[in-house]
């Protein structure tokens, strides 16, 4: 059995990655919870068992003396929706281009499905890609554009597949119209359909929501989740739309200053805030100040401050939440809601990017 070229497992280099979500759903959206992992996971060829869908190790690359990527390493398991985050110019697209064999790595190694895509037509046939340009010809119809790529990728029964995808992206009634007459959002949807036309095992989406209005962004987001669920593929999502990534992705890496600053599941990243904290919503928000005074002296409370209409309390011990609630109830405060606080991906992202910008 062939093993991964780089890592025998992701845990080998990233031992803190404990959450291996399947990625066929948004961990924050139970609608997409899998019925059965065995149904959801596309069968991985026996010879590729133990090989990650995407592997990057020690990747560096410079352009004209400027170092864009420095010793970048990460791995994406089969079936994950992976979010690759970073500010503009961080090197996200360069990483994708190197993975796709369009650019050579300066140092280090990359593999997609265990292969180097540079000169491997067979491996490239198992990978889909959507760059900021959708790869569509404006003067050809939607159906003709897809038929062209079906011919390039040798798609079996292309007519049925094209009909299926056009219906999925809600463009069936426009299939004979030139793409040049489409809106940006429609082109994006068609671009996604094109990228997955040949049922790739891994699909790279480079800024799929770029330039779209909020409604179209949501449509693309839903489409990614739906396609991942339906087509059972690994999705490599390159984006700086943090809300999109948090809703869609199971695992993220944050790239800043040419280096990976964080790499973990979204659940772990957003939960790891340093100290456990809870948010307590009172029935009467006017009592927040008095409630803070009540709990601030407690040995298991390290801090308390009003947070909107609620209290935000940091705790010395994650198991102290019942004691906090009991104290407040004992002091005759009426509690509406208690929830464990977690940081948003945006906060985590800004923290990492901010550190780099500050030169830390």
């Amino acid at each position, binding site marked *: 059995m062939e093993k991964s070229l780089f890592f025998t497992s992701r845990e080998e280099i990233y031992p803190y990655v404990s959450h291996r979500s399947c990625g066929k759903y948004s961990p924050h959206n139970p609608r997409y919870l899998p019925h059965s992992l065995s149904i959801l996971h596309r069968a991985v060829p026996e010879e590729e068992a133990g090989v990650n869908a995407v592997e990057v190790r020690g990747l560096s690359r410079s*352009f004209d003396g400027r170092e864009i990527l420095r010793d970048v390493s990460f791995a994406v398991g089969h079936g994950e929706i992976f979010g690759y985050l970073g500010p503009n110019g961080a090197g996200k697209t360069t990483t994708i*281009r190197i993975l*796709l*064999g*369009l*650019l*050579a790595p300066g140092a280090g190694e990359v593999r997609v499905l265990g292969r180097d895509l*540079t*000169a491997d*037509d*067979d491996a*490239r*046939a198992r*990978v889909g*890609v*959507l*760059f*900021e*340009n*959708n*790869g*569509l*010809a404006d*003067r*050809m119809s939607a159906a*003709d554009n897809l038929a*062209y*790529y079906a*011919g*390039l*990728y*040798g798609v079996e029964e292309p007519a049925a597949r094209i009909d299926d995808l056009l219906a999925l992206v809600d463009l069936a009634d426009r299939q004979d119209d030139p793409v040049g007459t489409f809106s940006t959002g429609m082109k994006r949807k068609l671009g996604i359909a094109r990228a997955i036309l040949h049922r790739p095992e891994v699909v790279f989406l480079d800024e799929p929501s770029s330039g779209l209005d909020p409604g179209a962004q949501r449509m693309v987001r839903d489409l990614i989740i739906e396609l991942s669920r339906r087509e059972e593929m690994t999705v490599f999502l390159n984006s700086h739309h943090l809300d999109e990534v948090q809703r869609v992705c199971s695992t993220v890496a944050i790239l800043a200053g040419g280096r990976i600053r964080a790499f973990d599941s979204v659940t772990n990243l957003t939960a790891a805030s340093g100290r456990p904290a809870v948010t307590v919503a009172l029935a009467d928000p006017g009592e927040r100040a008095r409630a803070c005074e009540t709990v601030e002296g407690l040995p298991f409370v390290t801090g308390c401050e009003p947070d909107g209409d609620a209290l935000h309390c940091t705790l010395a011990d994650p198991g102290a939440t019942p004691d906090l609630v009991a104290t407040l109830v004992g002091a005759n405060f009426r509690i509406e809601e208690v929830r464990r606080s977690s940081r948003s991906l945006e906060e985590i992202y800004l923290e990492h990017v901010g550190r780099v910008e500050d030169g830390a």
Partner: protein
Amino acid sequence: MSTLAVIARREIRLALRNRSALITAFIFSIWFPVMSALSIAVGADGDAAAVTAGIATITLPVAVFLGYIFCADAFLREKRDGTIETLLCAPVSLQRLWEGKAAGVTVPAYLMMLLSAAVSIAAISGLTGVSIAAEPLLLLHFAAVVPVWIAASAGLIGAAQLALGMRENQILGFVFIFGFIFLIVLFQQIVPAGSGISAATEAVLAVVGLALLALARFIAGKVTKERIVRTIP
């Protein structure tokens, strides 16, 4: 269908739907032979062989220029708008992609060249009263030599457009215009009026065309995906 045919067919369809390129090519195909007919008619002085040679001579630079017009759409536009990056990720070699595009450019350029040749023959016949017979060598010229030259020029221009940056491509455009004028003058020197069209001249032109095609293939083989991607604007 082979990937070469898939790519070529798409380029032909795109070219036939490119109104601006078609209008440019159409105007050039009409205007240039009509203007040339005058000088050929004067130089040939009623000699049918000289008229035939003049037509054969003028069609080559016309064919090359028509190839250039359609290359702008097949190679340069796709590079400018980034579509080429997606195509480079397909399970097709860069060489095959170039071959398909060059073949797809050759077909509409060749059709336009045939139109241009027909206009040339009609204009010169009208001006000189000379009836131009369906001479086998002239037919061979149109059927074999001209397509090779179109394919060679499309291949060379396409490879250059893929490899060069946008500014360099602008310079290439100017160089090509001057090269076009130089080519006309050169052909007028190589095939002097009154010499007629011969098997020898056709053989030389065919060999040169094939050599240019081989050169284009060699140059295209040296272009890398990295070079193309790094020169996308």
